[in-house]
């Protein structure tokens, strides 16, 4: 049976809503608990899920809606009581820990005339509004929010570019400005390489690989994944490049992005060529074209990082990571890649395909269970919307990915698992033990045939999680650890090849 509880004028952020939802699902007899704001989209979603439309329709975007499905009235009542306790249970109730007397954005900016960047992680429906308000006050924006309409992004960036302000995003995961990491960022030394990145994890991997070679990053300017689309036209990529060109601490420039729209790429090449500093480009999914007019178009993030390190006068190096006590042997069977970073999944797939390992990207979500329902070698990005609706990103919450590791690993049709792990601020604080446990469970559930697991770890020893520490945990669990997605993919490709 169903019940819908509407709490009027109770706006809460998604992290809080998820937490309340989790608590309600723990109540015995509760089968489903959706805790959402009453936006039109959420209302129609709840109605589609079969909750009483009349109750749902009464909610506004300012109202909190708890839609609870349980096996009987007693269970629903218990969940209702738990919901009330979470909000009204005195000073200790989770709902008490709210925003308090924080100022609104315009007020905060008026009180902080020196503030030069606004970081935004609000629901996508409101993100453009907030970003515009930051621009109204003449401040740059780090726009972590996604689900911002493309025309809004175009308008924001056009406006920002005219004002000499950055709009990093929407859907911008990573930036490092004057040594300070925004969003998901690794703790890398400062140095001569400036990065403009439309790919968050791509930027993270390049910055870490540079760090391994002893080369630091001056700045990493995020642009959001659609910046090089035809519509956006690279507005922030251009501004980022010009900022790095003028920046005295930057000697080498690296551009990391998904493959741009052809017109945008054509227009960007002369900008890169005439930047006045050595430029390395990594367009993800691109096979590389070598050096064109002095601009290096690298074939992988590794190559981009190594080239940038070389241009900065350093010798590319790969740190020695802990390795498993026993050799990693392939099982007979296919490869399943389960990634947390979308760009890293794309990099791995390119390497696999180049090595002759044909891969599929399933167009529906893999489901945790007894067997994998998709055929062939698979590369799955668990950061895809399929998996993240109502959940944090897999770089923060690995539950979905770990379940899939258990499912795929236990399925003896799979012989090789290919994983990634992205460390740094913003990410899960200790991810390797969860992955190691999932791998151990998977192996235990198999009938004895070996399961090879390779995992790239993007991080540094300065990161809160510690590269060596995480790698040790994985190695102890019999996982082959590499410093880049491409290297891990090459290792996996060799195993698959060897198994054939």
């Amino acid at each position, binding site marked *: 049976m169903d019940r819908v509880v509407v709490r009027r004028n109770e*706006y809460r952020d998604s992290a809080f809503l998820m937490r309340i939802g989790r608590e309600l699902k723990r109540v015995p007899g509760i089968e489903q608990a959706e805790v959402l704001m009453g936006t039109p989209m959420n209302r129609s979603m709840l109605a589609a899920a079969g909750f009483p439309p009349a109750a749902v329709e009464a909610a506004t975007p300012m109202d909190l809606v708890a839609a609870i499905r349980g096996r009987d009235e007693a269970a629903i009542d218990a969940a209702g009581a738990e919901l009330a306790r979470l909000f009204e249970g005195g000073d200790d109730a989770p709902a008490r820990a709210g925003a308090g007397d924080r100022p609104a954005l315009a007020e905060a900016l008026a009180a902080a005339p020196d503030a030069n960047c606004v*970081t935004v992680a*609000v629901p996508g429906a*409101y993100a453009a509004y907030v970003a515009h308000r930051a621009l109204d006050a003449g401040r740059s924006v780090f726009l972590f929010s996604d689900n911002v309409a493309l025309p809004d992004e175009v308008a924001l960036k056009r406006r920002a570019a005219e004002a000499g302000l950055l709009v990093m995003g929407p859907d911008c995961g990573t930036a490092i*400005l*004057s040594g300070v990491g*925004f969003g998901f960022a690794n703790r890398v030394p400062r140095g001569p390489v400036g990065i403009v990145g439309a790919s968050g994890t791509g930027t993270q991997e390049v910055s870490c690989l540079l760090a391994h070679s002893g080369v630091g990053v001056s700045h990493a300017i995020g642009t959001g994944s659609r910046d090089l689309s035809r519509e956006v036209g690279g507005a922030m990529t251009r501004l980022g490049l010009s*900022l790095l060109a003028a920046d005295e601490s930057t000697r080498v420039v690296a551009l990391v992005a998904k493959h741009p729209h052809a017109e945008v790429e054509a227009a960007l090449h002369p900008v890169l060529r005439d930047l006045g500093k050595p430029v390395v480009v990594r367009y993800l999914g691109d096979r590389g074209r070598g050096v064109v007019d002095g601009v290096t178009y690298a074939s992988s993030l590794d190559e981009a990082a190594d080239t940038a390190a070389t241009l900065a006068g350093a010798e590319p190096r790969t740190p020695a990571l802990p390795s498993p006590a026993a050799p990693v042997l392939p099982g007979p069977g296919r490869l399943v890649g389960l990634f947390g970073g979308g760009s890293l999944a794309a990099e791995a797939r390119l390497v696999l395909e180049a090595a002759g390992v044909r891969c599929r990207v399933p167009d529906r979500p893999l489901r945790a269970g007894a067997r994998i329902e998709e055929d062939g070698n698979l590369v799955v990005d668990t950061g895809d919307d399929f998996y993240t609706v109502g959940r944090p990103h897999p770089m923060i919450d690995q539950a979905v990915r770990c379940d899939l590791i258990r499912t795929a690993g236990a399925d003896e049709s799979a012989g090789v698992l290919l994983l990634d792990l992205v460390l740094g601020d913003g990410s899960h604080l200790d991810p390797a033990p969860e992955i190691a446990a999932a791998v151990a469970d998977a192996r235990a559930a198999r009938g004895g045939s070996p399961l090879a697991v390779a995992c790239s770890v993007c991080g540094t020893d300065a990161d809160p999680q510690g590269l060596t520490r995480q790698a040790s945990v994985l190695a102890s669990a019999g996982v082959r650890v590499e410093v880049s997605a491409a290297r891990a993919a090459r290792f996996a490709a060799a195993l698959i090849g060897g198994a054939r």
Partner: protein
Amino acid sequence: MNDDRTARSLLRAVPSVVHLGLDDVVAGIEAAGVPVVRAAFLPPAGGDPGRVRRLQRLFAPPLGPRIDAANRDALDRILASRPCLVGVAVARDAVPGMEPDLFLHAGPPIGWDRMSGPLRGAVMGGMILEGMAATPDEAARLAAAGRVRFDPCHHHAAVGPMAGLVTPSMPVWVVEDPAAPGRRAFCTLNEGLGKVLRYGACSDEVIARLRWMADDLAPALAAALAVRGPIDLRLLMAQALQMGDEGHNRNRAATSLLFRELAPALVRAVPDAERVARVLDFLRGNDHSFLNLSMPMAKCMLSAADGVAGSSLLTVMARNGTDFGIRVAGLPGRWFTGPAQPVEGLYFPGFGPADANPDIGDSAITETAGIGAFSMAAAPAIVQFVGGSPELALSTTREMARITAGRNTEWAIPALGFAGAPVGIDVRKVEELHLLPTINTGIAHREPGVGQVGAGLTRPPWECFHAALDALAESLVES
């Protein structure tokens, strides 16, 4: 401090960050030892996608700066106006557009059919007073048949508390800004508490008091003012704010100050000592005497901003007991309405929420001008009357400062470090902060004739602000 806040500055020194939303995003910034200012986020414009977009337009260039400038102009005009009490006159002689069969009422336009109990009661009393009907029943019949026409006080430079009824023979205070000849505001004289017309009472004693006010009280006050000369109401209000009034629900200090101003002049102007005593006794016995002056003072100030093109500041908040209406400086002549809301507060013994009429009266003009709930911090004692704690009085004024364009420094509030009263309600800020104005008000019984049953706090309905925002967005074009 570096004046450059463009993107270049992010590459020159450690960024200075203001954050909005999920905390994980700034974990690294804080881990690096860089302080992050956290701002609170609420969906703007009630989360309605179209309205969010319109609101964004009204803040962004080119419209945003244009509206900001218009609002500064409107605020300057409000603050430059100096309403003075100049006299007492009869409505039919003084109030512009007054006609023999025209009754003015509080709030936005409304017909007899939709009027609430207190307003109907006042209309019936008004008809008896004007000799149009002999009994309330007859008056009701005639009113329903269209014997009188109705118009909002605000259409005639007037304001009235509660029912706000102004009939042609009623005496009115005349308030005028000497620096802007012709900019006047009018309000009836306060009847006192208990069974009074403004709460819909229309019994014989009510009518008798109104007749006495017209025949005895008003001429005496007029004579006194002629001797005394104009009384600067803003100055008097400034003193009252420092004596614990807020000018809407607490007028004890201002009434006393008015008494001080009038007493010598009354003695000089009115030879009959007994009559002087009657007048002074009446003022002394009614703490709300000054409400009927704080209201036209506020009206006079706000009317200075009426019609300032592009301004998003309110010039009126008013209720007729059924609808709540607001008017916007840049959209002259228009009302934006929604249902009048219940009042949350304290009830007199024997009464409860079931007895209450929805919010009624033009007295929210005081909040619109920066007093009333907006200056509640000056009047902590009022919480004994409207409910809440002294802290609520302080926090209400602080909150209202968030939705206003500026402050009236002449109206300094001691408890807030002598900060001025917050004035100039900006429709955009109300929508952005999802923060409605607070109004201090009395609670009328829903049946005619019972009177006041309590006092408390209320807010306008969102519909007014949504409609005003939409109209502003429609009226202004980029170019």
